[in-house]
């Protein structure tokens, strides 16, 4: 009889722990899943260059980018504000991984189009991948000078330039992400005394989240095998980004005024040491055209 009493007591005490046990049982029964890193970067631009981020399916991003002239051009040019370059662009998410974009920059009256595709997604769990990789391809057409104004019989082929990038990023924590950007720029027609048709670069960029809605970004592109006569500089930039609702606002300081890859990566004119820094901003607004299920 005593035994039964003890048994009942023991069983009752089991019941006290039953909810905890049930939770453990639930956790045990859950299938291991793959956890994908999201929001490695806030937007599709780091400073001037691209990030691994793609727009979600059915999302359309309107981007308005603006680069003023160099700050060291003095009061006569209102410290660069008189002389601005603009790019207006649209990017659309065909799928969660594939984006397509078209844009126009005022510098050299360039029209550009690009595709980006997220090849790999950083994840932990069942599938363990350390980095996110996005392939990026851009074709740009300089429509300036007009045919009548050109000093040589310029063709459409002469006007074209192409950029290919592999964007490799890792989100180390919710505060810090880093990206490597091996890049090739091909220009169909160049001044052979200063540059080659094919130029290879390696970029490095970071994003550090300061508050819930504000982060600091930085990027630097190193150009390999540059000719001694080349007048351009390696592109470098710092950014500060704010997010409010559907807008991302980035304030940019860099030594390159171009906004299209050809110009910004291989034709940076600013000597940072002499204060040739351009102030600029990127403003994006995202519209969801197609609702997700």
């Amino acid at each position, binding site marked *: 009889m005593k035994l039964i009493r003890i048994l*009942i007591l023991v069983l009752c005490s089991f*019941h006290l722990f*039953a*909810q905890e046990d*049930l939770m453990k049982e*639930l956790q045990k029964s859950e299938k291991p899943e793959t956890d994908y890193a999201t929001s490695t970067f806030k937007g599709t631009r780091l400073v001037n260059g691209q990030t691994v981020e793609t727009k979600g399916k059915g999302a359309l991003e309107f981007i308005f980018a603006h680069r003023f002239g160099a700050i060291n051009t003095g009061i006569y040019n209102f410290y660069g504000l008189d002389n601005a370059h603009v790019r207006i662009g649209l990017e659309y*998410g065909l799928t969660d991984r594939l984006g397509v974009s078209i844009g126009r920059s005022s510098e050299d009256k360039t029209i550009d189009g690009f595709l980006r595709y997220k090849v790999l997604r950083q994840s932990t769990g069942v599938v363990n991948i350390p980095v996110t990789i996005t392939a990026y391809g851009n074709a740009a057409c300089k429509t300036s000078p007009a045919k009548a104004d050109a000093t040589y019989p310029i063709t459409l082929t002469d006007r074209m330039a192409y950029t290919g990038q592999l964007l490799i990023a890792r989100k180390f924590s919710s505060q810090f992400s880093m990206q490597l950007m091996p890049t090739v720029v091909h220009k169909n027609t160049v001044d052979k005394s200063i540059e080659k048709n094919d130029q290879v670069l390696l970029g490095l960029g970071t994003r550090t989240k300061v508050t819930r*809605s504000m982060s600091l970004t930085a990027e630097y592109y190193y150009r390999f095998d540059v000719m001694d006569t080349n007048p351009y500089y390696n592109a470098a930039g710092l950014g500060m980004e704010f997010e409010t609702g*559907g807008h991302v606002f980035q304030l940019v300081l860099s030594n390159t005024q171009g906004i299209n890859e050809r110009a910004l990566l291989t034709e940076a004119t600013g000597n940072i040491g002499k204060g040739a820094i351009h102030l600029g901003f990127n403003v994006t607004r995202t519209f969801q055209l197609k609702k*997700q299920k």
Partner: protein
Amino acid sequence: MKQLLVVLLVGTGVVAYGQKYASEKSLVSFYSHAAIEDIAAKTTKASSIFNVATGEIVFSIPIKDFDFAKSLMKEHFNEKYMNSEKIPKSTFQGKITGFQIDAAGAQQAKATGKLTIHGITKDIDVPGTVEFANGTVIVKSSFIVKLEDYEIMRPQLLWKNIAEQVEVKIEFTYKPI
């Protein structure tokens, strides 16, 4: 004496194992009406175990799996409001009372227990229904969650997209384990 022991052991064995149900299907959604735009999201990835003999119930909802109409909403929800990288799950552990096993139709019942959202645990007491049908059990409930209670930040006035509270609906269909 020995017989009694055997009966007791077998009996408790049934209580411990025979009456437990695991969720086979689930739908958890929330909705909030706000000045600028309504926010709605749902997931089918929640899981639950329900012990019909004791009424004990636990469930767990992976936050990152909530799907929204807009991809940007999902990003904001995870990044800015729920901090889902650090707090990946919301859970409930408690007890359902006021239902009878195998009674016909949907029975009004009450759940009491601890709801944990955004890492904050609160005691809640919510109404719902329990229904036994064809060997399955269906549990449904709908309740209001105040964002403030769970220390979920609300955005500034200018971009007031999220209301102060959201209506959460849960629905689990269980099969015996």
